[in-house]
């Protein structure tokens, strides 16, 4: 049996520019951090025929084509996994799908990692990331970007550049141990209880791209510029500036109609009035997890948001990326 563990992620800056509609014209730069909440994937050969896929539902089928789980089906087809001897795939995620933590990306990376090891053909993290992107973006035609798959593979707090041809360059953010600690202390994460499909939000962004919406492009260019400012602030150790840049990012992202609902805007305003310098909704927006940056008034902020019905979730960064836990 093979078990892999793949981190979920928190976007730090420049998110949204990782969509092909943007990077194919302008290139992309974004920073993303892996956190210590995970997608675990167990894969096992069975002594009897048949495929079992267990997630929020359980499927028992005879052929790959019959599988309903889109990513599992596409990944098995892509790798041409031999299922004559039978196969079982079980996934355990710390958070449900649709919470903006990049679970689909982590699932694809974790499953690829597990299946490559099962086939005794392990590949490096950049190959895992690119294969996962290929599955989600080209095969399944999901309107998503490359961020989730890449940070899930690499782990850590990473900078990613995508050129117009779609080639990704990855390198770690040059951040001090002290700044990492400060970030972990000052970023408070809350669950909104809302889960939604990123595809709906992102489909709008993609349509905007295809229609060559100059407003959308200007918006993402602003986001990109803030991404570079965030890199500079964090490498200098100026975390207060980082907090303010999150707010700047938020105000720019809010201009995109699909990215936030009036309820989300209301929560942000409550947080801002209660000590948060800035914050962001995870992933494509529209629900899921909220992160706020707060220095001195953490208790007030917690109280105010708990009153609004949000749950706090503690986190640390993950520096390992997708990892083989068991191979027996």
């Amino acid at each position, binding site marked *: 049996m093979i078990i892999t563990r793949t981190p979920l992620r928190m976007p730090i800056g420049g998110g949204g520019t990782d969509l092909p509609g943007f990077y194919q014209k302008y290139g992309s730069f974004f920073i993303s951090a892996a956190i210590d909440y995970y997608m675990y994937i167990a894969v096992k050969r069975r002594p009897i025929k048949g495929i079992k896929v267990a997630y929020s539902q359980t499927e028992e089928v005879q052929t790959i084509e019959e599988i309903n789980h889109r990513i599992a089906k596409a990944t098995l087809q892509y790798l041409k996994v031999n299922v004559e001897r039978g196969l079982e795939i079980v996934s355990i995620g710390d958070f449900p799908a649709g919470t903006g933590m990049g679970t689909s990306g982590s699932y694809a990376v974790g499953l690829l990692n597990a299946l490559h090891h099962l086939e*005794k053909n392990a590949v490096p993290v950049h190959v895992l990331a690119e294969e996962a992107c290929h599955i989600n973006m080209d095969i399944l035609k999901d309107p998503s970007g490359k961020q989730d798959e890449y940070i899930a593979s690499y782990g850590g707090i990473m900078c990613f550049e995508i050129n117009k041809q779609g080639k990704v360059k990855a390198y770690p953010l040059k951040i001090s141990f002290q700044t990492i600690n400060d970030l972990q202390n000052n970023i408070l994460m809350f669950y909104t209880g809302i889960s939604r499909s990123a595809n709906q939000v992102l489909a709008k962004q993609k349509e905007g791209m295809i229609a060559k919406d100059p407003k959308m492009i200007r918006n993402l260019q602003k986001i990109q510029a803030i991404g570079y400012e965030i890199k500079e602030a964090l490498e200098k150790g100026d975390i207060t500036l980082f907090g303010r840049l999150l707010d700047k990012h938020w105000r720019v992202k809010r201009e995109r109609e699909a990215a936030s609902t009036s309820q989300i805007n209301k929560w942000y305003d409550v947080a801002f009035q209660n000590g948060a310098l800035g914050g962001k909704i995870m992933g494509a927006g529209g629900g899921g997890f909220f992160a706020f940056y707060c220095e001195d008034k953490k208790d007030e902020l917690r109280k105010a948001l708990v009153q609004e019905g949000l749950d706090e979730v503690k986190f640390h960064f993950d520096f390992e990326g997708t990892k083989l836990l068991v*191979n*027996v």
Partner: protein
Amino acid sequence: MKKPLSHRTFIKQYFDESKEIIKKIPVADIDKIVTILFEAWQQEATIFVMGNGGSASTASHFSADLTKYTVMGASYEQRKKRFKVICLTDNAVLTSSWTNDFGFDTIFSEQMEPWIKKNDVVFAFSVHGGSARPEGGTWSQNIPKAFELAKERGAKLVGLSGDTGGVMKEMADACVVVPTVNKNHITVHVEGFHVVIHHLIIHRLKQLISQWGK
């Protein structure tokens, strides 16, 4: 009285023997060992390394090179996967403790006991391959004992040996026996060539790792 050998004559003789050994070294066995180790790296299996005396020092040196040297040509991405190596000759406390209480033959198997599992690799250096039983008494009996435990658990057995190859050659999945060209020079040549082969192996693995995923 026989005239003593000059330094120059001995040096030439020693190198001539070395050349002879290089010609006779079984290349296919080295090939097998590289393949087993590269597979173990891919699958993140653990490698246990051992040896006695001079071979203990080779075991320590090889362990360090396997861990570090192999990723020196690797990219950031390739370096995320490393050899997992446990050197059984580096722990003087456990070695003396097992010897003191249960005998010298237990030092390697008892150190491996909590860790070793299916598909791991046990890598031993031994001049005689744990041979010379019964006249050899308990010479290198710690290696055959470690091999027995490894076999029980489904691990792979690899050895670098000399002389007849001993028990090691019989049990191992891959074993290089350094050929004997002069019966009076067995130990020096075998130990010397073990170091040569160890460097060949780690350099080849370094090449493979730096090409991985390209």
